[in-house]
């Protein structure tokens, strides 16, 4: 039977525009595709659990009289100050849930394009390498900001609403900036970290293993070295410890390790630098086999 085909090709009479942010369609499509993944929505919703718990704590702290039977012995825990926010945001389980979301969102971002030779399609468009990387990194940034900046800044607002005064903000005027700065740090670090590992393989499953593996291996290595050398500087080998150290510095709290916070920032910056080098080498419009 003959194939019935619509031959109605018509020329497009519109005008192609030069976008100010050519990476925006890449970011938007990346976020949409992430939400299409099975089980992602569950883990994404689960990652909002810590802010909800913190919200409960903030509410109870403003209604101590109503909840005195429950919180009698835990009054100190409900002291809402920058330390309260820092304790939640640098908590290993919070970082873990963030990592799980980023595995869904970021592991395949570049690996899938490498696997299916899609880079040449991107670069056959008026896109530069930096537009491509920025677009992909924006997907990671979106999820970090949605999970870190947005809910925790809202919690400051809720605190003011529950208190019915601006006294909290007057007392800690730098807290919103600390949250924003920490969210920015996590965005840049995890953006580079996930991009680095996603561009290192064509196999997404392998990248997933690498994202968890490198993160936790650095932790284990740090603990082993600490056991051997009894030196606080061994914490610098752990990505998690460096994030906690930087977080404590940004919230103006006591550092968890006896090492200058600058060293932790330097280690995190080194990971970002390595990512830039690897991305520059791996992202090519044409794969040249020599």
């Amino acid at each position: 039977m003959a194939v019935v085909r619509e031959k109605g090709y018509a020329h497009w009479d519109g005008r192609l525009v030069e976008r100010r942010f050519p990476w925006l369609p890449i970011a938007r499509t990346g976020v949409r595709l992430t939400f299409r993944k099975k089980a992602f929505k569950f883990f994404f919703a689960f990652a909002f659990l810590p802010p909800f718990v913190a919200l409960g704590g903030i509410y109870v702290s403003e209604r101590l009289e109503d909840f005195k039977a429950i919180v009698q012995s835990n009054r100190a825990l409900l002291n809402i100050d920058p330390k309260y926010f820092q304790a939640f945001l640098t908590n290993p389980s919070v970082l873990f849930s963030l990592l799980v979301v980023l595995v869904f969102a970021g592991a395949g971002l570049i690996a899938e394009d490498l696997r299916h030779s899609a880079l040449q399609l991107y670069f056959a468009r008026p896109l530069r390498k930096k537009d491509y990387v920025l677009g992909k990194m924006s997907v990671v940034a979106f999820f970090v900001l949605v999970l870190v900046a947005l809910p925790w800044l809202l919690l400051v607002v809720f605190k003011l609403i529950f208190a019915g005064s601006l006294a909290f903000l007057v007392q800690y005027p730098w807290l919103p900036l600390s949250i924003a700065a920490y969210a920015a740090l996590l965005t840049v670090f995890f953006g580079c970290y996930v991009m680095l590992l996603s561009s290192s393989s064509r196999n997404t499953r392998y990248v997933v293993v690498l994202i968890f593996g490198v993160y936790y291996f650095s932790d284990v290595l740090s603990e082993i070295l600490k056991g051997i050398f009894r030196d606080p500087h061994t914490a610098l080998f752990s990505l998690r410890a460096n994030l906690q150290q930087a977080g404590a510095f940004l919230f103006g709290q006591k550092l968890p390790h006896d090492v200058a916070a600058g060293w932790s920032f330097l280690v995190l910056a080194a990971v970002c630098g390595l990512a830039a080098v690897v991305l520059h080498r791996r992202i090519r419009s044409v794969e040249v086999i020599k």
Partner: protein
Amino acid sequence: MSIEVKDLSFRYGPIQALDGVTMSLGEGAVGLLGPNGAGKSTLLRILLGFLVPEKGEGRVLDYDIRRDQAMIRRSVGYMPESDCFIAGMDAVTFTSYFGELSGMPRREAMKRAHEVLFYVGLGEARYRLLDTYSAGMKQRLKLAQALVHDPKILFLDEPTSNLDPTGRAEVLDLIEDIATKKSIQVILSSHILDDIESICASVVILNKGRLAAEGRMEDLRASRVSLFELRIKGGGEAFRKDLEASGCRIEETEDGLVKVYMPEGAARMDIFRAAARTGVQLRYFVKSRTSLEDLFAGAVGVD
């Protein structure tokens, strides 16, 4: 001229992929022909700005290939040779996505994606995940994404590779329609001679990174090789050797038809003289139309 290159050279490490290629391509479908490794894909990639030439210059639609890469990519569509898609997407999302990346407004890109998918014959499958597409469907999809922003020039790199005969005929049918009725210039790179012969009016033959022949197919056929078909009686071996000594290439079919490919400048009388010298009777003699295969063999120097 829509595409002009002058003294273009490029090397992959020690391998000289293009060596001083100079050519001008006008309107209509142009076939880029050559054996594997001739430099066809490299030439297309340089024209798209994927690779920076080591030497030489070029213009595509009057845009400089070194400076105006963004403008060139906005004006051309590229269908790569290898399978390429984005996992987890359906065809409509995929096609409109690349329309948007070309600079189309989002809504327009979506509308246009539906149109081109119907045009390439994927209308019914446009909401299916690309991961489930067959080789033929992926090939059509690549064509759709190359067409979505309505390019002025379409670069097609081996568009019929990995296709069964029916799929190949359908894709060629589409390309012919684009080239002849849609006023889009098609540059078709292939090593399948039949594909080019059926679609292109002009051809560029590359061999070992150099330009081996260029021009309208008819002109090349007329000027480069003369093919004569004959039937003979008598000592064929001596006759063959005599002709080969004068630069002719001889082929003999199973039913005894002798094909003589005469080089440029040779006269048909040379065949009669050779027959007279070797005592052979010519029972049948006719000048045949040169096929692209003959032309290619003549230009590249292989049987």
